[in-house]
């Protein structure tokens, strides 16, 4: 399919379009197109799981805006946040972290930076598992860490084990990397990343759509 760099540029373009939306109808249309795309690529189920976490955050953000502005601005802000994060949900669920990192190395990003970025993304599910284990272990001891305000009082019981385990993980990872030659000069890559015709076509099409939408929203003059 598309090169990771193409996907990244398209995601940034769509994010810009989302941020630039000034009317609720435009924002709704952008969110709708994205939902359709998620259904087409078969990610609906994982998107719904992700939405369970993101929807309350967006509503909370909207509520804060409502407090300082009006309902329309609040709805627009909440919708923008939801669409913006959904764009990157689509990007990360269709792009492998090391594909992204290694393709950026090809355009000049230092390998160490790309590696740190891709490995951090790679470890997100593991950290998520560890967070769940910590929550389960502490709740089993009678510490009320159920979601809510009362959990904030007990944050050391949650943060302490997570931080300690994160440090342990980092040390074990560094040891494993070192033992497999990380940092030797002259590194090659299993996969080559070449921009194909379809990438240029997708980028050109994306740029045209972006300009057209921006002009459509903000007028010609």
């Amino acid at each position, binding site marked *: 399919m598309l090169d990771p760099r193409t996907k990244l540029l398209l995601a940034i373009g769509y994010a810009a379009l989302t941020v630039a939306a000034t009317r609720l109808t435009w924002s709704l249309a952008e969110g709708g197109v994205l939902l359709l795309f998620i259904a087409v690529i078969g990610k609906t189920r994982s998107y719904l799981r992700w939405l369970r976490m993101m929807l309350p955050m967006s509503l909370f953000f909207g509520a804060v805006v409502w407090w300082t502005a009006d309902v329309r601005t609040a709805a627009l802000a909440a919708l923008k946040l939801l669409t913006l994060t959904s764009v990157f949900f689509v990007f990360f669920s269709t792009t492998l972290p090391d594909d992204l990192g290694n393709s950026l190395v090809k355009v000049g990003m230092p390998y160490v930076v790309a590696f740190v970025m891709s490995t951090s993304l790679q470890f997100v599910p593991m950290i998520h598992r560890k967070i769940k284990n910590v929550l389960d*272990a502490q709740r089993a001891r009678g510490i009320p860490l159920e979601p809510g305000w009362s959990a904030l009082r007990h944050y050391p019981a949650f943060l302490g084990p997570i931080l300690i385990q994160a440090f342990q993980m980092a040390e074990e990872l560094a040891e494993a990397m070192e033992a497999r030659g990380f940092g030797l000069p002259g590194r090659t890559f299993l996969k080559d990343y070449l921009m194909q015709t379809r990438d240029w076509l997708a980028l050109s099409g994306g740029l045209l759509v972006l300009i057209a939408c921006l002009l459509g929203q903000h007028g010609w003059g």
Partner: protein
Amino acid sequence: MTASLCVVETNRLGYAYRKKDGNLALDGVNLRIASGEYLLVCGASGSGKSTLCRTFNGLIPHFYGGRLHGEVRVAGKPTSEQSVVGLFEEVGMVFQNPETQLFNSSVAREIAFGLESLGLPRAEIQDRISATAQILNISELLPRNPQELSGGEQQLVSIAAVLAIGPKLLVLDEPYANLDPVSVRRVRAALKMIHQKGMGVVISEHRLPYTVPDVQRMVVLHQGRIVLDGPPAQLLALDVERFGLELPLPVRAGRRLGLTPLPLDVETLPSLDLASPPPFDLKTVPPDLPPAAAHIVLEAEHVSFELNGAPILCDISFTLRQGESLAVVGANGAGKTVLLKHLNGLYRPTRGQVRVMGKDTRRVKVSHLARHVGVAFQNPDSQFFKLTVWDEILVGPKALGLYDEAWLRELVKLFRLEPLLQRAPYRLSGGEKKRVAFAAALAHRPAILALDEPTSGQDWHFRSALGNLLAELRMQGQAMLLVTHDLSFAEQHAHRWILMAEGQVVADGSPWHVMADKTAMDRANLEPTDSFRIFSADRSHPTLADCIREK
């Protein structure tokens, strides 16, 4: 042994992790590892096994710092003059925790990582990936994400990632520590094959039953020194127990019967006949059953559970009585830990119900159920956040308002924690951490104690000490639920087993009753314990088995 045949050589090697520390992790170690040799480095926890292995590829001292005396030579060159990345083509290392050493998005990329470091052309990387995957029989895993594999598969991928580089020596640090018996079998077979292909293998382990039948030579470390060195059949005839090592049961039976050479596994134990003095006292004796009228503390009735639409548990029913010790056994992924989390409401049944002290877990808060169920999960690091062990033990009683100073003092004594009370819990050894976690789970006197993989990665000292503790608790009427794949421990310390496979109970009864059910054991992908295999009628020794039963 000439220098050219020697891959690794240590001369009067000493090492301390801190420059100003007087405690030596290694002390005067002289060792030569020949090309193509299969060597076991064994010893109790803290004997220096992992430290020694990390000197072979230069992680010590280059990565850890510290103070190193003497020298380590790899292929004739001192490691002090080379970097870790300069040594990785000579000595490949597989670490204990596969989860954190797999950091790529697919198995193919994981294997490619070291080859990319070498700067090999793309076509050669591809060829080596295919060849290595074929050797280890993991070709079907190549496109998969390593983080989604089972523990055994992850360990094979870790081995493949190092093997592909083509080192002269493959070093594995406690590769079986967190694996279930099925995975251990698979990794052992892979290592045997790698050795047969001519590569040197060094394995650091304290569990002898999994290693001594495979290796050519073993060295025993004790307090950082090599105290024994030679072929396993010779060394195991000596008093190795004093170095904290548990002799495999076939070896003990062989010693009792005066067999030479000593049998190292059940397969090589010759047929016993009645003319030989039968080693009766070697047979595992399960604990005495609690009285049938004992109070029921836990009931699971037709429990089924689904997670994200996928069935995890299916129609599980059992009861637990006061003073009873129940083991939930099965391979990794059978659903054991999910079942355990139903006890305190962390998971609630999709169908059926769990009652703790008569209360339906679906209608009671987790914090309320915590009063009745004390749980110690597999990884104690998931719960430690206090600065001292004493404060850590007090967390539960304070949160639940069930503080009993006299009981806490008794508990500290029972778990032998007096010397550790003012130490930071996350700085303790693995065994000490487990003891603190178990004491913390019992600190508010729950009716049920549930331990998740209590012996995982622990040595014989810990296992026998834990066994004694559990026996004392049973005598006090404590109901216990052990979730484990360590069948020999469960055989000694549980009255009853529930055997799980694919989220279902496939057998339920006394340990020997369950192990005798071959269909269920096959379904759970487990093998009976050595004790069962030696002493049960299944091993075509009905007369001996009958004799034991009579006695």
